């Protein structure tokens, strides 16, 4: 790896990383991002050390899980994917029946010792199961494979969208779609699906979306129409980012952030805080870091010796990109407000663990025996 200078100290640490089956580039970027995230969280939470420590604990746990998963060989992953998938879907149904209501949506399952969102499992299980299904078929995918895959994807997506959790549904759906896309679904089909969707859009608008979701989309088009109601988030977020200017107001100095004008500023809207305090240059740097991670993931996918690894690593990297794009697009007013966190930076344990396990999967693929990188 050209990123690592081959001095004795580095080669020593590289040997350790290799032994742990950890990709040094990804690991370095993830760590830099996590440190960024902790710093930003400290600022966004109003210098709340407790909150930061809690996030640090989760981060440590997530990194341990990453290493554990990285050491599971891809063929084992391939085998368990269908069980993981089925378990996830059953839990989703359980949530629908027994789940806890939080913030107007039924997402949580309380198992007594731990409370978690089963939809997080599907973020990984869906691309895994579709990748393992398609890996053994002849590519590009034929009609039968397409129908089976779409069914595999749409069952959990519809269940999650019903909760309602549009953000996660989009992430799970796109993860499944990316596997299909990489597996070579014909452009004709992709295009006609796109046309079909846009034709059905008015119907979907009426039937599939809930009132608040429609509101969010309308708000996106004209946030100033309701500055104290649904437009408030977007307006305040844009003010925060815009007032950051080229160099930003400085860490802990964002007035919009520190004075509580940004709602959800330590979770979904944390990028507004970043944009305000670190400005255009800081934002570009952050996005560049994300880009390195995405491209490293895609590179690992390309170098993978088998289809399962190629499809899974590629889809997970692209899903990571969807996180970044949807979140930054949302806080800058390009996309409607959907609950997608800024990966590795937003406060919250579940998404942190899922993401890190996802990178564990990618690293497992990189370390498989026939890896050519």
């Amino acid at each position: 790896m050209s990123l690592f200078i081959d001095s004795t100290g580095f080669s020593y640490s590289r040997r350790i990383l290799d032994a742990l089956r950890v990709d040094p580039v990804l690991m370095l970027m993830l760590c830099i991002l996590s440190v960024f995230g902790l710093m930003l969280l400290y600022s966004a939470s109003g210098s709340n050390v407790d909150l930061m420590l809690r996030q640090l604990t989760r981060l440590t746990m997530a990194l341990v899980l990453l290493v554990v998963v990285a050491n599971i060989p891809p063929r084992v992953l391939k085998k368990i994917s269908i069980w993981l998938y089925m378990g996830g879907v059953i839990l989703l149904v359980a949530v629908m029946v027994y789940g806890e209501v939080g913030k107007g949506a039924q997402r949580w399952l309380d198992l007594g010792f731990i409370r978690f969102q089963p939809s997080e499992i599907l973020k990984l299980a869906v691309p895994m199961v579709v990748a393992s299904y398609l890996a053994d078929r002849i590519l590009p995918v034929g009609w039968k494979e397409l129908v089976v895959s779409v069914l595999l994807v749409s069952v959990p997506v519809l269940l999650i969208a019903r909760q309602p959790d549009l953000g996660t549904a989009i992430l799970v759906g796109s993860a499944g779609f990316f596997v299909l896309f990489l597996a070579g679904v014909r452009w004709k089909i992709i295009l006609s699906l796109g046309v079909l969707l846009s034709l059905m859009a008015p119907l979907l608008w009426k039937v599939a979306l809930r009132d608040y979701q429609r509101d969010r989309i309308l708000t996106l088009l004209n946030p100033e129409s309701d500055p104290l109601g649904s437009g408030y988030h977007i307006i305040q977020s844009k003010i925060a980012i815009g007032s950051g200017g080229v160099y930003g107001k400085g860490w802990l100095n964002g007035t919009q952030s520190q004075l509580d004008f940004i709602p959800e500023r330590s979770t979904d809207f944390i990028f507004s805080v970043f944009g305000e305090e670190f400005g255009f240059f800081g934002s570009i740097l952050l996005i560049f870091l994300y880009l390195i991670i995405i491209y490293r993931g895609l590179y690992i996918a390309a170098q993978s010796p088998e289809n399962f690894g190629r499809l899974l690593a590629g889809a997970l990297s692209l899903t990571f990109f969807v996180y970044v794009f949807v979140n930054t697009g949302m806080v800058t007013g390009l996309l409607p407000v959907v609950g997608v966190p800024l990966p590795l930076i937003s406060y919250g344990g579940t998404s942190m663990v899922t993401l890190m396990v996802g990178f564990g999967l990618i690293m497992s693929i990189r370390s498989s025996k026939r890896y050519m990188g």
Partner: protein
Amino acid sequence: MFKRVHLKDDFLESRLIRRRLVVSAGIVLVLIGIVVARLYVLQIVDYEHFSTLSDSNRIRIRALPPTRGLIYDRNGVVMANNLPAYRLEIVREQVEDMDETLSQLKHYIDYTDQDLERFQLLSRRRRPFESIPLRLNLNDEEVARLAVNLHKFSGVEINARLTRNYPKGSHAVHALGYVGRIDVDDLSRVDEISYAGTSHIGKLGLEKYYETELHGTVGVQQVEVNAKGRTLRVLNETPPIPGKNLHLTIDSKLQKVAEQSFGEESGALVAINPNNGEILALVSMPIFDPNLFVNGVSYENYNKLRDSPSRPLFNRALSGQYPPGSTAKPFFALAALEANVIDKDKTVTCKGFYRLPNEERKFRDWKKEGHGEMNMKNAITQSCDVYFYDLSYRLGIDKMSALLEQFGFGQKTNIDSTGERAGILPSREWKRKTEGIMWFPGETLNTGIGQGAFLVTPLQLANAIAALSLKGKRYRPRLVRSIKDNNTEELLETRVEIAGQYQLGKESNWKHIQDSMINVVHGLRGTAARINRGLKYKMAGKTGTSQVFGIAQDEEYDAETIAKNLRDHGLFISYAPAGKPRIAVAVIVENGGHGSSSAAPIARKVMDAYLMGKS
């Protein structure tokens, strides 16, 4: 028969997936490019716009009310100041359940329905995050009780605010006026920006007239707030400029003497320095405590004041209009001499009544049996009505009102206070305008003894006698001597203004009037002779009695049988020392009967206090 067999070709498949990966990487780059472009627009192109929005978001402008100017008497005695008073205030935004908070507060502090009503009225007009007073003027015990339990309430505050205070209570209330809470009417008159943060405004008297000077200039504080409106720090501050101090012409000690001299009587007194128009005392009795009004008078107290038959809220000195009675006589006498229609030594026989030629109607003298032979001096000294009926008949209403107008009757003096009324100086012109009918000769006679339609205010009367003492030079009366700018330490004297100057025809005419008026006090038969005992200076005066209700032709006025409130008003006008006047006083005692017994002794006490330094 044949099933087409597709063999897995890893090379082709991996090429397909790689191609798709490259396409994906391209799409990722394009979409990331869009986000970067968006950030470029927000943070660089529209930076100014959002920066301004961000500043206005977090910066609030808060008004700092100025401290109201103080009021001193002419010797530096404090008449009005500001004291910190504790208020119970509530910030609506910080209260979770207003009804609950209000009912819980009731356990610790008593507030009336009226307080609540006012609180709700203010709540509707307040700016966001402004604290609204629920109770004013908390006493120490209430503050202590509340302070201990304050942690149980969010949004409830105890704030000390400077509040107007009149340390001498009811003393000089009608001269000072008072301040009260700004109401809807006030708001429509004043500039809302300069009164942002100010809770009180001059409602009456000096406090109202000099509102601009007393109020000062509002200060501005830029504070940084969070989205909940809580102040985090002060960014910059333009301090308020306190209002200017007023130094009055009023002499508090003299005012006190005058107020005490009235005893239980109702009435008014105005003492004035003839040489410059400075008001030395301005009294309207009874008086009331203006402090009651500062923080919103309770209905109970207000009703008591308003419904009191002695009408303490009524400023008699400026707004009270009374028939001048015989106090008008010296002016008419001067008019007759100046017009040369009468010789000062010619006598008129007073038989107790007067009849116009060819008329049946009898015009009665107050002395039933008549005064006998009367020349002008005696007629003034003994206040003979018949002489003045005759004088008026000869002089005519036109010349009478023309001269009296020169002494300020029938017009406002333009004193620097509020509520002044103009009185009525009857004339043909006035009658045509107001009633649209012609003037009757009988009315001339009634006017000649200061009755009929003729009405004066005590202030007018004082200013007229002051002018008479100076042979017709009349000043605009003033309550404020100087105004001190607390900011520049500059002391601005108010201007001495001449309101009018009567051009005396003959010096001897005026001299004769003055001599006659000296005789009223010092002469053996003077109507005010009873006050001359021990008098160490020469006083010129004239008594008067004004009818409250008309008595029919043949009825007699019997003070004993008439209810107190229908009894005549007693009047007295005077100045001293005659020849070199330093003070002029007009007194009216409502329902006091004859002026010589009720009003004149009050004037004597005030003059003694002023000229002899006695109190």
